[in-house]
């Protein structure tokens, strides 16, 4: 009994450590502007939409937000299109080079985005794709692809291969068996893999800041404006960048654990 109490207290304290700063940011973004500049700040201020409206109406913010969404969507689609077949191959086949591929794809994350995005910016300048959503989205795809492969491989491993084989016994071709039997069972997990890529892309700052100039994504835009922007503006921006996590993590949390399980 005492141990249970101790455990819940610990869990609650750790949760407070995560949630309380999020609460502070939220009231920073939604309190009356004068409350931000009042000292000491009130932890239960009167709320208003003023700061958020001011931020959303600022020059460049709506387009940057739109661009972020487009980049994230391309990233999710591209990394799913490339990563799910690879995840399927890892989950269903044993072949020469399987482990080598696995090790390679995991170790790509050992190479910092810093070393990749700068030459990519130089390439993009030469190809005339600098400062476009494509350059950023493809860089993000390279970053998220390993995670999508690992998650989708763990999701597809969990769907029994027997089901697929049974469908083949009854006359389905292998692709049809995949589409009719495995896919419907795996779709939540595969969508989670795509959602994870979407979330990572929406939050990525370094590559986005190096690969764009006039047409930044939201994080890059906020970063460029950081030193010259007033505090309420910063808080509104940070809140807008933070809020998707509440929705996405809810739907993808159990599938992300696949990253930790992959051996």
């Amino acid at each position, binding site marked *: 009994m005492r141990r249970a109490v101790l455990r*819940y207290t610990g869990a609650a304290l750790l949760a407070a450590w995560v949630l309380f700063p999020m609460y502070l940011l939220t009231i920073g973004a939604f309190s009356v502007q004068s409350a931000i500049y009042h000292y000491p700040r009130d*932890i239960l201020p009167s709320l208003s939409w003023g700061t958020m409206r001011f931020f959303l109406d600022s020059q460049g913010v709506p387009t940057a937000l739109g661009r972020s969404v487009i980049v994230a969507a391309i990233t999710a689609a591209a990394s799913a299109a490339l990563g799910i077949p690879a995840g399927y*191959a890892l989950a269903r086949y044993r072949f020469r080079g399987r482990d080598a591929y696995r090790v390679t794809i995991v170790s790509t994350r050992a190479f*910092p985005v810093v*070393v990749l995005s700068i030459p990519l910016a130089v390439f993009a300048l030469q190809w005339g794709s600098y400062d476009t959503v494509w350059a950023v989205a493809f860089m993000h795809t390279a970053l998220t692809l390993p995670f999508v492969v690992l998650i989708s491989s763990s999701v597809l491993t969990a769907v029994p291969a027997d089901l697929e084989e049974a469908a083949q016994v009854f006359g389905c071709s292998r692709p049809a068996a995949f589409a009719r039997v495995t896919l419907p069972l795996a779709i939540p997990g595969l969508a989670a893999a795509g959602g994870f890529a979407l979330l990572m892309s929406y939050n990525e700052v370094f590559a986005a800041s190096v690969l764009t100039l006039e047409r930044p994504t939201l994080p890059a835009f906020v970063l460029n404006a950081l030193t010259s922007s007033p505090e309420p503006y910063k808080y509104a921006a940070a809140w807008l960048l933070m809020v998707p996590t509440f929705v996405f993590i809810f739907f993808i949390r159990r599938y992300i654990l696949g990253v930790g399980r992959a051996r």
Partner: protein
Amino acid sequence: MASVSAPASQRRPVTPSARPRARHRGWTPYLLLAPSVAFLAVFFIAPLVQGIELAFTSTSGQYGLATFHSMLNDPGFLSALTDTLIMLAIVLPVQLVLAMAMALLVSSRPKGSGFWLYVYMLPLGVSELTSGIVWYSVFTQQGWLNSILTSLGVIHAPVIWLSYSNSLLIIATIVVAEAWRSTSIIVIILVGGLDAIPREYLEAADVFYASPWRKFWHVTLPLLRPALRTALILRTVLAFEVFATVIALAGGSLSVLATKANNAYTQFQEPHLAAAYGVLIMALSVLATAIFLAGLPVREERLP
């Protein structure tokens, strides 16, 4: 492995029994891997090679170490390097303890463990820029920390946490921001590792009346070694990339290697110098990986 729809926390033990079938001789798996391999060749291998080449050529196009030479003579290079390493040396153990506590709590599966897991994973979708701004709002002179301390009567005048003259204090705030944001990736890996520990091992320890502490120290921790190693490697690599948090908290008063790289490119238009910083970060990441691999050897035959 259990069915897809079973909540992750209910799968236990996870045995590696779901191995793929017999060796396949056809082309199908290779065709399935080909798109991702081709993509990574263009967007990973090519920039990597080009990045190394950029770093080893001078602005005039000659091969050599000239760029590295100018990097070493860059004012603030040394402090950026030491500050990066100090930050890393503090944040890693802090995160490891936090993540271990979170992972053990989640996998001991109290009521509502799904909720705790959700909360602990939330920062996974928070950008490092957001994290920097969140903690800026806490540590800035008229910020939350000073407000709360003043309201409680602990201090009478605001403390300057983000002082230009005290780099260790700024590093401490960066450590807090990093510990807050990026612990969740370690939690994920550790929960995966804990799930893979067969229950019988802990039950065997129970038979001998082992205390919870001894069970953790002699059973859980050794079996968790592979997961710990993966987590440490991934976190170290990612910690070298932190830069927006540093800009949000420190402005220009403190640099890490990644902010140096970013400034070299975006402010000074020096891709060679930026690439040299990138190569240095990569070398440090590889070195750290090698140290963890050697320092935490995993003996496969001793794992379940």
